[in-house]
């Protein structure tokens, strides 16, 4: 890495970049450094102290809001620290540097019959970033979060020391989930799941309302490997909560050909005609209330009449990484981007809270263009978002003009989530206030603050989100 000499205390001007959250509605200029070794990470810690700047940790930048950006700080980007330190195709255990992505993991494992135990809706997050936010997948109700399936991590604190942490240590549960505010995860050891086929058996069911949504999940929670449901957020009255539910199961029979990457790779063209790299341009003119109301209604209708209550097979990649089907789809939200608002509500209150959220968005004429429902189980991570209940993820278009109104709407919805005993997901957050964060984190926030004092007493590591939520101001 090209670091300035100690005599020249200005940061290299050519390192500055505008970096954004995945939703592109949060932006900041930072001095971006991409270390490839542990010593280079230590050099950046030293440099930050010399020039009096904070550091924000960043993986692939897939957190939607401001968790991996911070204005005028040094952004320590781990995407170039991406070696497999070891890989055993017999046991499915891999040891990786933090920049190894979920895509790298499945491409390495699947030809040998191994699939990551937990994957997000996109294959591009790095393992370091994914563990910092402790991501979940469509099997959270069964497998827990990514952190639940990790055997060991190395945590480098800002003094340059590396500690190896395992699930029998409390710090393991804080290092994972604390949004990169306690230290850098520099090594991840995890086991993958044995699979015999690269395909899944998938069941689809069109659902008319919220009652049917919850019932569909509860009915299949005992035996499904994955469950997810799409909700038409423009549905109202008797159609409120209508959508399309999917459950999926791994196939038990050996099918070695389906394990090969060429079987998994997503098609280059949609419907064999439209290059998928151009699809966002087609979506852009439809990316407004009228267009999205129409598209959601069309999707609901097609779910009702095509493949309803039937099984089909789908490749693991196609089922798991829906977000990657259309490259650069988020560009349809330019120029001001979007937020994904995902809240987690206990089982007994989920239907009431989520139905009310949609009502509120409809009253405000700010309906989300996409709604996704998932089932979850609790875990013991310090800044956990998960609980025994459901989450509802909503994509809201942002514009400079409507942003203050959208924030107020989300904050009113946040109050409802807190009142129900619900939780929030830092990878998706862009609207919490310090009071909201304090309310849902409770004593865990105090624990985080104590750990911060111990592991990063000078407060070198930060983020736009940590500043916005004033996570360490009362410490």
């Amino acid at each position, binding site marked *: 890495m090209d670091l300035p000499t100690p005599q020249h*205390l*200005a*940061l290299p*001007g*050519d*390192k*500055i*970049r*505008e970096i954004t959250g995945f939703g592109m509605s949060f932006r*900041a*200029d930072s001095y971006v450094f991409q270390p490839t070794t542990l010593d280079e990470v230590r050099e950046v810690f030293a440099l930050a102290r010399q020039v*009096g*700047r904070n550091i924000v940790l960043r993986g692939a930048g897939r957190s939607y809001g401001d968790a991996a950006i911070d*204005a*005028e700080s040094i952004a320590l980007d781990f995407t170039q620290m991406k070696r497999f330190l070891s890989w055993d195709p017999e046991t499915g255990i891999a040891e990786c540097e933090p920049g190894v992505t979920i895509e790298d993991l499945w491409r390495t494992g699947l030809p040998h019959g191994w699939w990551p135990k937990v994957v997000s809706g996109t294959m591009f997050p790095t393992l370091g970033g994914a563990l910092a936010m402790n991501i979940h997948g469509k099997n959270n109700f069964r497998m827990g979060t990514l952190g639940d399936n990790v055997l060991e991590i190395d945590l480098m604190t800002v003094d340059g020391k590396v500690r190896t942490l395992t699930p029998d240590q409390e710090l393991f549960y804080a290092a994972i989930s604390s949004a990169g505010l306690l230290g850098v995860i520099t090594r991840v050891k995890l086991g993958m799941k044995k699979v015999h086929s690269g395909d899944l058996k998938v069941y689809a069911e069109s659902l008319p309302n919220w009652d049917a949504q919850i019932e569909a999940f509860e009915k299949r929670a005992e035996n499904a490997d994955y469950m997810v449901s799409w909700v038409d957020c423009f549905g109202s009255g008797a159609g409120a909560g209508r959508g399309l539910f999917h459950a999926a199961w791994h196939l038990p029979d050996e099918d070695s050909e389906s394990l090969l990457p060429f079987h998994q790779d997503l098609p280059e063209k949609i419907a064999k005609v439209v290059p998928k790299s151009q699809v966002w341009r087609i979506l852009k003119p439809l990316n407004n209330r009228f267009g999205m109301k129409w598209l959601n209604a069309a999707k609901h209708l097609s779910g009702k009449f095509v493949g309803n209550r039937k099984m089909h097979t789908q490749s693991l990649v196609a089922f798991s990484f829906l977000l990657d089907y259309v490259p650069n789809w988020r560009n349809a939200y330019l120029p001001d981007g979007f937020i994904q608002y995902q809240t987690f509500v206990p089982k007994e209150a989920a239907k009431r809270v989520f139905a009310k959220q949609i009502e509120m968005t409809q009253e405000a004429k700010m309906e989300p263009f996409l709604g996704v429902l998932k089932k979850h189980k609790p875990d013991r991570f310090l800044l956990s978002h998960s609980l025994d209940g459901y989450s509802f993820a909503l994509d809201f278009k942002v514009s*400079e003009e409507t942003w203050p109104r959208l924030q107020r709407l989300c904050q009113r919805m946040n109050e409802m989530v807190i009142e129900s005993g619900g939780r929030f997901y830092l990878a998706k957050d862009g609207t919490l206030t310090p009071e909201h964060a304090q309310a849902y984190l409770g004593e865990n926030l105090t624990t985080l603050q104590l750990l911060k004092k111990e592991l990063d007493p000078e407060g070198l590591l930060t983020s736009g989100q940590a500043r916005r939520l004033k996570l360490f101001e009362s410490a």
Partner: protein
Amino acid sequence: MAKFKHAIVVGASSGIGREIARQLAASGCRVGAVARRGERLAELEKEFPQLIVPCVHDATDYDSVPKVFQDLTGQVGGLDLIVYASGVMPIVEVDEYSFEKDKAMIDTNVLGAIAWLNQAAERFSHTGHGSLVGIGSVAGDRGRMKQPVYNASKAALHTYLEALRNRLDRKGVKVVTIKPGPVKTEMTAGLDMPGMMEPEQVAAFVIKKASKTGEHYVSPKHAVIFAIIRNIPSWIFRRLNI
């Protein structure tokens, strides 16, 4: 009109620069206000305590600019806009050839501008956003008998900004040249010039045009007059008393 959130104004202690800093701060923008005279900056800071970040610096202290610029962008919390408004115009008699006065104009009006705006240009070229504004002058449109080096300094600034515009336009960066006529400032105190503009009026114009890449005359009348003046053949121009 773009709403700026983070700006630097060089030459913020008086005249147009001070007004630009004031009007930006009044709109909620955080402004790094750069000038030699600390007491003037303190007054500005008192007026907008959370929004003005004072920075005492001599624009001709070129070597220190990279560090000062970087520290200031850190304190301001980012940079969407930089305005170089520093300028000097000592009174030069029509038969005076003072190298000292001429050098002072080149130092402040040209080299200071290059030292500061190069920093911003490099930053904006990497971040892919930002507006860079230089306060030029109608005086830079032709070499006139009364102010050879002031004219030359503004012409140099205009050409430098044009070149930056050609470099940075494709990167999404706005480069703006503002050409005011005579403005009622300390620089023009004691001069008897027709049609003097108020600094408040010029500052509002600068902020309005700061995201519109190109050259802008503050007065539409000047745009017409100087289009003609620019096209007067040299053999005629040298016979005119302007």
